[in-house]
């Protein structure tokens, strides 16, 4: 588990140990603290930051969806904006006749079904061809949404009312925040369950060697379709929440840029780790704010360049791919390691840590 010169011992006394939700005893304490912080956040955060926190939660859910498919099953998708859009439009259309508590899960199911439809032809593709295939699918879905005016109102856009659960109206960001956090926690819990089950191991097997996965009895097509369906469903749920946050959707919000943002979340967060979805989502929401603040402090000829934000994105992404492929989660592990070893930390012990960071499943 730990670097070679570790001073910490983990004594496992049963096989159940590895199946626990929080592998180490002190984790429970930290997660409890995090839970309390999340619960009281709306009481202390200024309204603007609370709105940003809602968006972080939505991106965690969408990022988790893509992480299942690309991070764990190894199927790169450049088309996840489409599932996000399907979720947003499905909830918008269904809520004209159904209450939110039914329309919301239905939006997830519809997005999941679209995921299977996209997954079927993509079964025979891999790598760059799969990326192009999913990109093409997302263009088709985007076009359908833009042209199917009788249902989606096309490019004139769709206004969405606030969420109502029974008699309870989610009319503030704080109330929406709690719903989003609940869905995000449920998604990550489900992710952890999948990863400690045979299904999750089969997904990672497909990522690493399809021939070997097949030889131990993993039905490739079935597991890939399950990954596509779950991935699209969660990204769709995120889209449905996003529609309620923004309260107005039109086809221009769900472009290739959104698909790329979702990929940035999982790459910068840390591919193949659930923590990575959270780190990546925080990163993608905080970065534009940080750039905006930065703009006040740099020479105006730089600050007024139009491509500044995109350029900073690109440099950071390249930096992570080159120097820290395990992403922010990798940096997090190293930092934790540094403090747990203090003052005995040695540079070489990073190596062990790095390789450990590659597979977070157990």
């Amino acid at each position, binding site marked *: 588990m730990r670097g070679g010169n570790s001073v910490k011992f983990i004594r496992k006394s049963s096989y159940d140990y590895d*199946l626990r939700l929080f592998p180490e005893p002190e984790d429970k304490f930290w997660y409890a603290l995090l839970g309390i912080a999340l619960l009281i956040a709306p009481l202390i955060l200024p309204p603007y930051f609370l709105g940003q926190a809602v968006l972080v939660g939505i991106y965690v859910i969408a990022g988790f969806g893509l992480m299942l498919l690309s991070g764990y099953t190894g199927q790169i998708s450049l088309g996840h904006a489409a599932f996000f859009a399907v979720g947003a439009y499905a909830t918008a259309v269904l809520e004209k006749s159904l209450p939110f508590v039914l329309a919301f899960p239905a939006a997830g199911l519809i997005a999941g079904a679209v995921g299977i439809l996209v997954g079927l032809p993509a079964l025979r593709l891999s790598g760059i061809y799969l990326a192009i295939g999913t990109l093409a699918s997302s263009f088709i879905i985007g076009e359908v949404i833009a042209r199917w005016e009788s249902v989606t109102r096309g490019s004139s856009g769709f206004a969405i009312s606030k969420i109502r659960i029974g008699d309870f109206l989610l009319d503030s960001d704080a109330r929406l925040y709690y719903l989003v956090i609940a869905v995000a926690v449920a998604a990550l819990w489900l992710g952890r*369950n999948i990863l400690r*089950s*045979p299904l999750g*191991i*089969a997904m990672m097997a497909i*990522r690493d060697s399809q021939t*070997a996965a097949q*030889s131990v009895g993993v039905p490739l097509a079935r597991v890939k379709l399950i990954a596509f369906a779950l991935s699209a469903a969660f990204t769709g749920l995120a889209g449905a929440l996003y529609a309620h946050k923004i309260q107005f959707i039109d086809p221009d919000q769900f472009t290739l840029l959104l698909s790329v943002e979702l990929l940035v979340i999982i790459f910068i967060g840390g591919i193949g780790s659930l923590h990575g979805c959270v780190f990546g989502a925080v990163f993608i929401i905080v970065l534009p704010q940080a750039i905006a603040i930065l703009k006040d402090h740099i020479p105006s000829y730089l600050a007024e360049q139009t491509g500044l934000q995109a350029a900073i994105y690109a440099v950071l992404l390249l930096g992570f791919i080159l120097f820290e492929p395990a992403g922010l989660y990798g940096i997090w592990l190293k930092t934790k390691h540094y403090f747990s070893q203090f003052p005995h930390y040695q540079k070489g012990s990073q190596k062990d840590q790095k390789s450990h960071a590659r597979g977070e499943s157990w």
Partner: protein
Amino acid sequence: MSLLTADDISISFGGIRAVDHLSFEIDPGDVFCVIGPNGAGKTSIFNLVSRIYPLETGRLLFQGRDLGRLAAHDIASTGIARTFQNIKLFDNASVLTNLMLGRYRHNRAGLLEQCLFLPGARRQVLADREKVEQVIDFLDIERYRDKPAGDLSYGVRKIVELGRALVSEPTLLLLDEPSSGLSPEETLDMIFWIEDIRDKLGITVMMIEHDMRLVSAVANKVLAVNLGARLALGSATDVQADPAVVAAYLGGSPGDPLSSH
């Protein structure tokens, strides 16, 4: 009744017959070894049995079931497990996870059970883990349990792959060059393991091997192939003495004065 019957099987790639109307039978308890020069079609025979390649002619019967009718991912569930010549492990995952995957065919937990990790899923994982730990103990790889498979030495990776095949509790185990790349000490270990796999675990073994010391030590039947066709079939000593086999390995034709040495 024989365990695996290959009846007139063939596969060709372009104009090349990799396996050419080959027939053989493997009985329960055999250690059946396939030998032959490079490019003789040995691995192609394995790929036909595991359905990675489709059969062009003939039939493969395993315990009376026609393997030709099954999909590649269904082969494992009939009780056939295999290793690969150029090791195919899940490099990003730990040794433990690699071995857990070997249990996949025994998974009875449904999709919902796994997503919610209901008691059924937990029971499944714990039962799998129990079996995996037995194999870790059998192969003496405890110290690698939590290491990523990609970081291990070649010899250990080879043993982990053998472990992944064993945890599936197969009836027939296909080993593709188990000793290639192993040190002499590791090869000796491999001989003991193969004997134990046959005697203690009761698993029938079919293997491809070049190291004749290992073949002579464990195989009770040896099939020599060249250019996809059978040269000889019999005990290790008989096959090694067969003039056709000697000719295939050393060049020349049977009866050539050079080849008799």
